């Protein structure tokens, strides 16, 4: 049996590919439904609700169809609400997960990791005010809870993801009082070849915009609360190519919510606890190293989707197909030459999609000048309330030289999020203060989280029950 962790585009397509090749699959998804962040909260069933959701996102149809393939395939067992809290390697791989308040353990020979990514945040003055959130959080509120983050919303940061979020919020009835993309359109000209080859996708991106007006070269640099402590306005400024604020360009925009995001950070907790080889991705942040079959440095473990490099849903689907096929081949003892053509065909598609994804990462990159917007009082770590000033002081006075010593001496990253939100920022601030380049190892050293999701001591003490796949 093959275990897949993550039921987003990569995990679902891997499940279908592996099952079609004859393998039995257990698909573990932490949220209550399949779809992942990308197809968040696909409708349970029925065309009507699909049409309703479809109005929110143009390719929901594809997600709906893939979901139905997964659900109707007798070789795939889907377990939603299964929160993996620990994965350990012994002779086999032991996946411990919580489901219905009980811990189970699945003993698996082969594993596909498709754990996806989460929004990348940058600290700025006021980012801890209620009403300030990530685009992903705003979208989750809308799709999962049918709650609008606000009536007047600013969407800002960088990346193609801002467009569907702004579009969804607008269609659901919010007034988008500003849509700010920090990177300028003209960067596309540097990549005109790639742009031409992918013009359809760019047109699709444009379609999200509809009546929305996107301003490029601007960023939200601070958020401000009113007397009740809730968000009242944000300040927006013109930003140069190194992300420094252009003087005399700051304006205040009244709003009751701000969705600010800076691309994505791959969720590597499980990959790291398995000791998989990680390498620097396009933006130096680590990704899981995989071969042409999506196989990691552990021959029993495959990886697909955002954890092998941020690349979007289409690349994730392709990687899932390759991983699913390859893992099924080794599970069933099928000679790879038999399915070589199939994998080669998808490899070509993957190569093209990866090239496009890397171009997007270059265009929508984050430059180190963002640090100039952050004031000393700004919290770098929200969980433990550590300010930039405290972090800087620990560097000057206590001999902090890396993220680990910062964690031990200031508590950054020790709180509820375990550094998922702040550690990337902390690494960059520390390197900046010492005038040294960030290296991939600096990020890797902050990612050791053997427990992925909190469990009660009672459940831990009871032990995991062996899970018997159906």
């Amino acid at each position: 049996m093959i275990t897949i962790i993550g039921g987003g585009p990569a995990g679902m397509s891997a499940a279908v590919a592996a099952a079609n090749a004859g393998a039995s699959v257990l698909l573990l998804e932490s949220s209550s439904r399949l779809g992942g962040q990308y197809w968040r909260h696909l409708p349970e069933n029925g065309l009507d609700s699909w049409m309703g959701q479809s109005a929110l996102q143009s390719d929901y149809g594809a997600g709906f169809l893939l979901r139905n393939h997964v659900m109707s395939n007798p070789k795939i067992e889907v377990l939603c609400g299964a929160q993996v809290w620990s994965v350990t390697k012994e002779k086999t791989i032991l996946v411990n997960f919580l489901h219905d308040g009980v811990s189970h353990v699945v003993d698996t020979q082969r594993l596909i990791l498709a754990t996806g990514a989460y929004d990348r945040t940058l600290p700025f003055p006021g980012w801890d005010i209620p009403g300030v959130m990530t685009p992903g959080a705003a979208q989750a509120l809308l799709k999962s809870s049918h709650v609008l983050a606000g009536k007047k919303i600013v969407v800002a940061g960088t990346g193609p993801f801002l467009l569907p979020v702004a579009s969804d919020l607008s269609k659901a009835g919010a007034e988008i009082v500003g849509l700010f993309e920090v990177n300028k359109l003209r960067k596309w000209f540097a990549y005109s070849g790639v742009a031409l080859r992918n013009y359809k996708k760019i047109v699709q991106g444009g379609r999200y915009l509809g009546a929305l007006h996107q301003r490029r070269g601007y960023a939200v640099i601070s958020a401000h609360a009113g007397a009740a402590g809730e968000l009242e306005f944000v300040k927006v400024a013109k930003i140069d190519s190194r992300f420094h604020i252009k003087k005399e360009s700051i304006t205040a925009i009244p709003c009751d919510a701000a969705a600010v995001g800076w691309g994505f950070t791959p969720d590597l907790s499980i990959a790291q606890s398995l000791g998989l080889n990680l390498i620097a991705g396009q933006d130096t942040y680590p990704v899981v190293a995989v071969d042409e079959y999506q196989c990691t440095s552990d021959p029993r473990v495959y990886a697909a989707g955002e954890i092998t490099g941020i690349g979007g849903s289409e690349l994730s689907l392709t990687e899932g197909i390759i991983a699913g096929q390859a893992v099924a081949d080794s599970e069933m003892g099928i000679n790879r030459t038999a399915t070589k053509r199939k994998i080669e065909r998808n490899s070509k598609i993957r190569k093209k999609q990866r090239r496009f994804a890397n171009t997007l990462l270059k265009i929508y990159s984050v430059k180190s000048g963002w640090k100039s917007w952050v004031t000393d009082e700004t919290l770098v770590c929200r969980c433990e309330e550590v300010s930039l000033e405290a972090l800087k002081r620990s560097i000057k006075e206590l001999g902090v030289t890396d993220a680990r010593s910062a964690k031990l001496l200031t508590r950054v990253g020790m709180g509820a999020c375990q550094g998922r939100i702040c550690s990337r920022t902390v690494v960059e601030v520390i390197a900046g203060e010492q005038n040294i380049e960030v290296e991939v190892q600096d990020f890797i050293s902050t990612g050791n989280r053997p427990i992925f999701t909190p469990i009660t001591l009672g459940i831990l003490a009871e032990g995991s029950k062996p899970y018997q796949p159906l």
Partner: protein
Amino acid sequence: MKSPDVIVIGAGVMGAACTLELSRAGLKVLVLERGSVTSGTTGAGEGNILVSDKEVGPELTLALRSRNKWFEISDEIGGGFELEAKGGIVIAKSDHGLSNLQKLVSIQQENGVVIEALDSEQLHMTEPYVAPDYERAALYPQDAQCQPMLAAAHMLKQARALGARVEVRARVIAITSDSQGISSVRTEKETFYTRIVINATGTWASEVAALAGSHLPISPRRGFILVTHPAPNLVRHKVYDADYVANVASSDADLQSSAVVEGTRSGTILIGASRERVGFNSTLNISILRLLAAQAIALFPVLANVQLLRVYHGFRPYAPDHLPVIGEDSRFKGLFHSAGHEGAGIGLAPASAELIADQILGKTSFMDASAFSPHRFAEQS
């Protein structure tokens, strides 16, 4: 600082304490640390400053002195490392545990440890969430706690103000000697000349001793710690079962575990202390976490509903006779070791540093330190 009076290897709590002690005496001290400050066992410690778990002997003498020195250091450097006389409570329920506890208590009391016996009612007043079947306890008001990483960093800060220098990312790759003893220390980048080297590298002390051509039998003894989400006031002291002392003293390579449970200032609860000798193995062992959780719940049933936030592990520097190694090397003049304190390194650091400084400066010490001498291993090598 090409030719310092003293080179201290290791910027953990032991290196920091030695550096402060010698800087205060006016010596020029250079600290060489291969990683970042407190990146070794200090960074994985709970910050125990305990007298309660010490059996009577030279280690208890060292512990009592060291405990008081921590409070003096805190006054000297203006605090900043969360030092607090939290108090330890050793609890017992079985007849066996009870009689062990009574034996330990009476002999400790004769040797200067302050102990208050608690009956069942007093115990449950002091620690309201402790399991009802625990009926006896001994309260050790001298037991204290600090944040060990901050303690080391602040001691180094003070030492720097007194003229010491700290080099991080400076791995020592060679220690040379001539007819007069130690002569130089080489890192990957530089060579420094000195006649005195202090090996304060804890669990890695035998590797560093080997660089000089000497031998120390110090090996890692792994321990896991569970950290919960903040749950203030559930646990008010450092609480452990009387069996814990027996585990510390055991030399078995297999897993020993008895939960030590304590609340911290940030509200989180720390649960230790497993002990196993598995080399520098970092593989997570769920069954150990399970055992620690079950033992903690046996002490405090309320913990069953508290959430585990994270786990981490560290490698205690283990010496086969469970005594620290403090003093001058048997073969190399000028090479001093202060290592091998196992799980008590934080607590014992200030007094260990004092013994080292006394030996370097030719002063008479507060105790006879021969039990800690590295010479005791000389025949074995």
